[in-house]
């Protein structure tokens, strides 16, 4: 399979070079990453990553700090544009379109919802936080906005807690609530892809479980890229998991295989077993 590509030997990514094979898989691949290299001012952060993310799967990325996981996400929605220091080479295909050469990066970003490690409630009301993205799309009708806000907050399991105080500042909610607000905001983009970057780092275990439940519900509708430093979280949620280590993509496989010891690289099983990292 494609995901078995050994990134340690970039000259021979088995299966990837066959264009016929690529064409048959494209229909179900939301994102195709080809030879992605990221460096910061000459210091390499991610090397020769090639992988596919299938439509409507939860794709987990695990690995210790400094492995290039966040840089990987930034390269996908072109956030490297805002960091002059960050150089990206390679291709990222979104539904077959190369995003690296895309001019309308705003359309790309609006299709991809992002959740950060630290919750970012924008300093505006809860309502405006969720209504912001629809407003950017040009939706002005109050009733439409009301409907979107309620639907997204409900989806993010926050509606019951905030429905009576939609005018409170989003930045005044508790950490766990703000993280769910961030998810509601991402959902208000009506995204095709949701990228979560270690979302549970600053929230309590109960909120973490609630968000995990939300992700399980969403997996049938949108493609989810879940970066996590909790190995067990990847095990609970991800259909397939990639293991990044020090800028290399060491292993990509079915999550079940990874956790049953069916790995090609010893470091993967060492990390999963908690022997380092």
């Amino acid at each position, binding site marked *: 399979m494609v995901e078995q590509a050994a990134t340690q030997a970039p000259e021979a990514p088995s299966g990837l070079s066959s264009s016929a094979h690529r064409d048959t898989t494209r229909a179900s691949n939301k994102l195709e990453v080809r030879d992605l290299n990221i460096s910061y001012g000459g210091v390499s952060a991610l090397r020769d990553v090639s992988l596919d993310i299938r439509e409507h799967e939860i794709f987990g990325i695990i690995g210790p700090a400094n492995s290039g996981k966040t840089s990987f996400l930034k390269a996908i*929605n072109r*956030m490297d544009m*805002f960091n*002059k220091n960050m150089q990206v080479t390679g291709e990222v295909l979104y539904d077959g379109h190369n995003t690296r050469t895309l001019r309308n990066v*705003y*359309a*790309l*970003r*609006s*299709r*991809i*919802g*992002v959740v*950060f490690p*630290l919750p*970012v*409630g*924008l*300093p*505006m009301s809860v309502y405006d936080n969720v209504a*912001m*993205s629809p407003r*950017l799309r040009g939706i002005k009708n109050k009733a439409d906005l009301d409907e979107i806000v309620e639907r997204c907050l409900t989806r993010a399991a926050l509606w019951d807690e905030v429905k009576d105080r939609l005018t409170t*500042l989003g*930045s*005044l909610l508790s950490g766990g609530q703000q993280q769910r607000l*961030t998810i509601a*905001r*991402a959902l208000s*983009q009506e995204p095709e892809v949701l990228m979560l970057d270690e979302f549970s780092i600053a929230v309590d275990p109960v909120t973490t479980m609630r968000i995990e439940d939300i992700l399980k519900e969403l997996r049938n509708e949108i493609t989810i890229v879940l970066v996590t430093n909790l190995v067990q979280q990847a095990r609970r949620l991800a259909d397939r998991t990639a293991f990044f280590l020090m800028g290399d993509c060491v292993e990509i496989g079915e999550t079940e295989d990874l956790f049953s010891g069916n790995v090609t690289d010893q470091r993967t099983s060492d990390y999963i077993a908690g022997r380092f990292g």
Partner: protein
Amino acid sequence: MADSMFKATQQNVSDEHRDFLVQLLFFGMTVLLIIPVIIILCMLMWKGGPAISWEFLFSEPTNGMTAGGIFPALVGTVWLVTVALLVSVPLGVAAALYLSEYAPDNWLTRFINLAIINLAGVPSIVHALFGVGAFVLFFEFGTSILAASLTLAIMTLPVVIVATRESLQAVPLAFREACWNMGATRWQTIRRVVLPNAVSGILTGVILEVSRTTGETAPIMFTGAAFFLPFLPESVFDQTMALSLHLFVVATQVPNVPEHLPYGVALVLIGMVLLMNALSIGLRMYLRGQKKW
């Protein structure tokens, strides 16, 4: 032994004494600093207070400026400050937005930043002469409110730019990134998130500018402020009297002025500045209370 564990040693005692002495020293310095301010204010109140009346504020100077009021100068100062603000605030805020939100970090940006800092250090008399050369003569505005206000605007531009840039940069980057990730352009991000949260700082800078503009004398002396002109200006192309220059004139240029008159003018001038500062502090406190993150 629980008792001896927290017993003060000789070292502890002397450390504590030294700490107290240092605190006393710093308090003394602070008091020293505000003594001149208090003396100036008291002198002005005592000597200029009796001069202040409705008539003083709202009538024209008479008897070769040795009697009467200050109304034309008061109105002139309001004109000068208002026109200067109308020019410098849009210009300064736009420049600060560019420098903080758009400008890449390259030699040009660094050069512009350096130029702004230097502009703030240029003596006001140099600005005045520039104003004469550029606005009065080259653009042929003549000595007018427009020329004087433009000179004031250029002089106070660095204040607006620096204050605006600093309050823009106080808005956390995470807010911008959250918006960019949603597909917002830089301008959408600025308009919806950055500016609303920077507005209190910007207003503070603007009011600081107002209080500085009110008191400036040199830049308006040759560009638009008149020695004596007992009429109210009708347009920006008229000359006008101004409080700061009027104070200079009645204090040094006109003989036989009763003592209370210049003190009265000074008191009105400083009263305007203090009012502005109080407004600024109040506004900032109000807006800070609104903003929480």
